[in-house]
Structures are given as structure tokens and as C-alpha cells.
């Protein structure tokens, strides 16, 4: 179904940085789950006379994020006060960055159904988080543990065209930030929040119309983005069509999203940047990132997911799917590469194990569980299969044993007697015996019943104690039956 308008979307993403202490004071930044108001000091409570001192690690993580997003790091940057009154903001202002942010003009590569796309990043700046509040009937309860936690706000240009694209963007962004060690971005703990700017663009009377946007504040899940964006776009469209508020409006509005009622509601009808009365924070000095620091951070950037996926597909000849599954989990991808290094076989064989059995067992084992044996052992197992020493089905059994006992595969194969019989003489003897005993099945097969062959293969397997190499069995069987045909 095609809509009568185009949805134009830009996203402001707020992520908490993975520091141990807060942005401007040494209180612990591990606020989630801590007893209320237990991680506070005069700075993050906004008590008179308290002075902020920036956290070096927070600045470095913010710059790392910028570098991973191909941003430029300006020569000078500073902190500003963003003034507004709200109970979760004890000083009456938030320390943020206004006209000289730490990172500008970057981009993020996105795979869309219409092909690859670059989403431009306008800026990424540092600021401090607010307190959390619980709302009662006519009052609110404030907990300042989160107040002052370092926050990075990443602002995209309005380059996204659908809710799905917006979700793909925040997922890709999250993947990069987690990979680069900038943020754990646990959405369920509120460590990632999104303000989504939505507007509609359409042609009317031969003219392109692009009325002012709505900013949907504080979405905290992919599901909320997926629901709220089309809802607000449609609301804007109806408002325009029915001669509603959008026809009169000249500036943007701020709306909230109610997941219960599944609709947006008006929060602020006008919001001008002058209202925040930004000015440089006189308690803080300006910041000039040194070229050495920038280069050191750039050098320590890990290979990012998109690049790694492309390399896996290119160097190891993996499918797009395999590359995607492996790279989705950094530990899994590292494990795969180590096993490939220890093996002389086709990397695809290793990939099959890692994306299949390994991943399944890790999932069963739960969060944080690793592979209980080193990658060299997986390479050894692949070697046993590739050389024909064990069958594919026996290898699965060996793998299960490796997982629980951590014994090397060769030892398990020996102990359990799982060595596959590939010796042609032994197999041929078994085949001859089976053919002699199953004249009817042979006749059926010759009469065109292909399924009869399966029964014969099964008989041979049984005779060899299930250890016969299936490809050898198939070949010898086919040869013998064909020969029998020729001699008759």
C-alpha cells in the first residue's frame, strides 16, 4: 500500500556512556537498580557552590563514537548551559554542548531493501543525564542517581524514510556503539532513548509541501519507534487534509507517546531554541582535543560490524547470511576466525558449526556463556569430518560430548568407537551380502522404485554397525547394481 505522502524522519539518539563515574562528579554511574538517591553528591544534586570537573574517559568515549561514525573532531569544543526548569534537573540547567559540539558531519552506512544508504550524522555531543522520576497523583518522586550520568546525543539528518528504516538505523547505531565499547546501550535499563522527528512531504496542486515536524520525545524501544512514527505521520496527514492544526502551524511541536493508548499526545506546542538561553558554562573551561589523542583513539577502534561482514564474505567466501549471523556477536565472530586460522579446510565448514551447533548451545546455556572448548578443537573436529574419519551424524555426537566433557574430539571418537569405516573392501563385502539377501529390493529399484535404494543403504549401515562412510556406501552400491545389470 502506498501512502499519499512521504515520511521524513530524523533521529536524536541518547546513549549513556560506559564510564564508571558520572560526567562532572565522581559519583558512581552504575545507577540502574541502586537504592534511590544513594549515588549523589553536591555536584549532581545541584547544591550551591559545587563545581563540575569533566570525566576524561567520557570525553574519550564520545570521541571514539564520533570516529566510528566518520565524524570530524573540531579543534575547539566547549560546554554550555541549556536552561529550563524541570524537577529532574536540579540546577535549573543541563550542561550540554550548543554551537561547538565534540563531533560533527559524520555518516552511518545502512543496508535497506532498496540497497545501501548513507545516513548523515549532523553532530554528536556530550551532556549530562537527568534524574529519574516516578509519577503519582499530582506529584512526582525524584531519584537523583541518574543525574549527571554522561550522555552522548547523536543527531541524524532527516535522511530516513520509514519507521522500518528508522529502526534499522538505531539498530545499526547500537551495533557500532556496542562494538566500539562506547556504550552497552541496554534499552531495557533506559540506557538508550530516542527523540524522533517526523514530518510528511507530499505534492499538492503541483507544489511540494513539507509542513513543520513533530518531535516524538523519549521513545525507548524499537517497538515504540515502529508504532509511534506511522501513527504521528498519519495524524499529521489527516490534520492537513481536514484543515487541522498543521495548516496554521509554523514551528515544530513536541509530542509524547503513550504505549498504553497507542497514540501521541501534545506536550509543548512551541519550543524555540532561544527559550533555552544557551550560554557557555562559566564553571568549565574550553576543550581542545589533541591530535595525538584523536589518533590514539582512531587506532584503537575495532573493526566495525559492517566492515567485518564485508570482509567475512570476501575473504572466507561466506554467504551474506552467515557473515551477518557471525558478526552479530563479536565473541562468536572472534571464535570463528580463530578456528579458521587453526584449520586448513574450507571456512564454510567452520561457519556451519559456529552458526549452527555452537550458537544453539550458547543460546541454551544463557547470557554470557562462552564456548567451553578452544577454537582449535572445533578445527580438529572439522578435520575429522573432512578427512572422512567420522560421519556427519557421528560428528554431532562428538560435538555434544566436547561441549559437556571438554575432551578433544579425537579422544572422544576413539573412546566411543565412532571411527567411520571408509575401507572399500569392508564396505564392498557388506554391500555384496546385502544385495544377495535383498533380491526383491534390488529388483524394485531396477523397476524404478528409487526408494528401494534407501532401504539397501540402511541395511549396509546396519551391517557395519552404523559406521560405514555413507558416500562410499552409495558409490559402491550404485557400482554393484549397475554391474549386475550389465552382466545379466
Amino acid at each position, binding site marked *: 500500500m502506498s501512502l499519499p505522502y512521504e515520511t521524513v524522519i530524523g533521529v536524536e539518539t541518547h546513549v549513556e556512556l560506559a*564510564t*564508571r*563515574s558520572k560526567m562532572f*562528579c*565522581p*559519583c*558512581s*554511574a552504575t545507577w540502574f537498580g541502586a*537504592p*534511590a*538517591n*544513594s*549515588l*549523589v*553528591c*553536591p555536584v*549532581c*544534586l545541584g*547544591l550551591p557552590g559545587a563545581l563540575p*570537573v*569533566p*570525566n*576524561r*574517559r*567520557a*570525553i574519550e568515549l564520545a570521541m571514539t563514537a564520533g570516529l566510528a561514525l566518520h565524524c570530524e573532531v573540531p579543534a*575547539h569544543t*566547549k560546554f554550555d548551559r541549556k*536552561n*529550563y*526548569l*524541570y*524537577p529532574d534537573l536540579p540546577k535549573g540547567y543541563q550542561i550540554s554542548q550548543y554551537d*561547538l559540539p565534540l563531533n560533527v558531519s559524520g555518516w552511518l552506512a545502512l543496508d535497506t531493501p532498496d540497497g545501501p544508504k548513507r545516513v548523515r550524522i549532523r553532530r554528536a555531543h556530550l551532556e549530562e543525564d537527568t534524574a529519574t522520576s*516516578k*509519577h*503519582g497523583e*499530582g*506529584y*512526582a*518522586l*525524584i*531519584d*537523583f542517581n541518574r543525574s549527571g550520568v554522561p550522555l552522548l546525543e547523536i543527531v541524524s539528518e532527516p535522511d530516513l524514510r520509514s519507521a522500518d528504516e528508522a529502526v534499522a538505523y538505531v539498530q545499526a547505531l547500537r551495533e557500532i556503539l556496542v562494538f566500539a565499547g562506547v556504550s552497552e546501550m541496554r534499552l531495557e535499563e533506559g540506557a538508550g532513548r530516542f527523540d524522533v522527528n517526523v514530518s510528511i512531504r507530499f505534492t499538492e496542486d503541483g507544489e511540494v509541501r513539507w509542513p513543520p515536524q513533530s518531535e516524538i520525545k523519549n521513545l525507548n524501544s524499537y517497538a515504540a519507534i515502529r508504532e509511534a512514527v506511522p501513527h504521528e505521520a498519519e495524524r499529521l496527514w489527516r490534520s492537513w487534509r481536514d484543515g487541522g492544526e498543521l495548516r496554521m502551524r509554523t514551528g515544530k511541536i513536541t509530542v*509524547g507517546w*503513550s504505549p498504553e493508548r497507542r497514540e501521541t*499526545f*501534545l*506536550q509543548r506546542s512551541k519550543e524555540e531554541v532561544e*527559550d533555552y*538561553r544557551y550560554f*557557555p558554562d562559566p564553571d*568549565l*573551561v*574550553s*576543550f*581542545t582535543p589533541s591530535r595525538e589523542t584523536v589518533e590514539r583513539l582512531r587506532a584503537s577502534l575495532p573493526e566495525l560490524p559492517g566492515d567485518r561482514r564485508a570482509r567475512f564474505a570476501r575473504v572466507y567466501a561466506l554467504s551474506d547470511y552467515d557473515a551477518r549471523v557471525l558478526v552479530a556477536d563479536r565473541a562468536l565472530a572472534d571464535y570463528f576466525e580463530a578456528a579458521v586460522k587453526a584449520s586448513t579446510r574450507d571456512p564454510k565448514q567452520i561457519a556451519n558449526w559456529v552458526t549452527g551447533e555452537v550458537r544453539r548451545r550458547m543460546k541454551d546455556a544463557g547470557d554470557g556463556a562462552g564456548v567451553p572448548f578452544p577454537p582449535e578443537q572445533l578445527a580438529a573436529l572439522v578435520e575429522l569430518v573432512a578427512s572422512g574419519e567420522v560421519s556427519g551424524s557421528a560428528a554431532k555426537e562428538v560435538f555434544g560430548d566436547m561441549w559437556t566433557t571438554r575432551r578433544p574430539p579425537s579422544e572422544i571418537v576413539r573412546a566411543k568407537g565412532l571411527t567411520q569405516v571408509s575401507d572399500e573392501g569392508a564396505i564392498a563385502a557388506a554391500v555384496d551380502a546385502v544385495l544377495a539377501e535383498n533380491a526383491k529390493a534390488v529388483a524394485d529399484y531396477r523397476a524404478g522404485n528409487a526408494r528401494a535404494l534407501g532401504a539397501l543403504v540402511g541395511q549396509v549401515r546396519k551391517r557395519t554397525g552404523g559406521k560405514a562412510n555413507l558416500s562410499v556406501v552409495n558409490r559402491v552400491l550404485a557400482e554393484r547394481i549397475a554391474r549386475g545389470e550389465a552382466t545379466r
Partner: protein
Amino acid sequence: MPIDRRTVVHAADLARIALTDAEVERFTGQLSVVLDAVARLAEVDTSAIPPSASTLPLRNVERDDEPRPGLGAEEALANAPRGGRDGEFFRVQEVLQER
């Protein structure tokens, strides 16, 4: 630099200060005088002075990312005004309503 009543009402609203009509009248005049005084700065010729975000001779003041204990809840909450404490929380009036 005269300012109008609307600007004064808006500024008061941003500062969450309730003003009577008489006060708006009085402050409109007073704030104009204040702004005029500050506006005299614009008369200084700054064309030869490079822009600067800070007048302090310091740069890049930072601290290590080492957590230290702060006040603790009891001491923090001791500063709450009467009726402004609810268990381990600060209690305030609701300000943002769904409309």
C-alpha cells in the same frame, strides 16, 4: 532597547515566576533600562579581537574516571524542604500534564 510586555511575560513563564499585571508593567520598564546598559557593550570595536568561548587561561581540565562515594541518601534528603521527602525520594509537584 525597549522590550515589550509579551517578552516579559514569556521570560517570567520560562522562569516559572507568576507576575501580576502591575509587576509586568513595572518590569517592562526596568528591564528595558537594564538591557540598554548592557547594550552599550555593542559600542566597543571588537573587529580586531578573535572570538573566544572562554576568558579563562585554562584548557582541558579533566579528571580520571574513578568513582568515589558521595553523600548517601540520608544526608542528601536532609536538604529536602518540609513535605519534600517521601521515603528515599524527593517529592515535588507534578509539572507536565498530558493535554
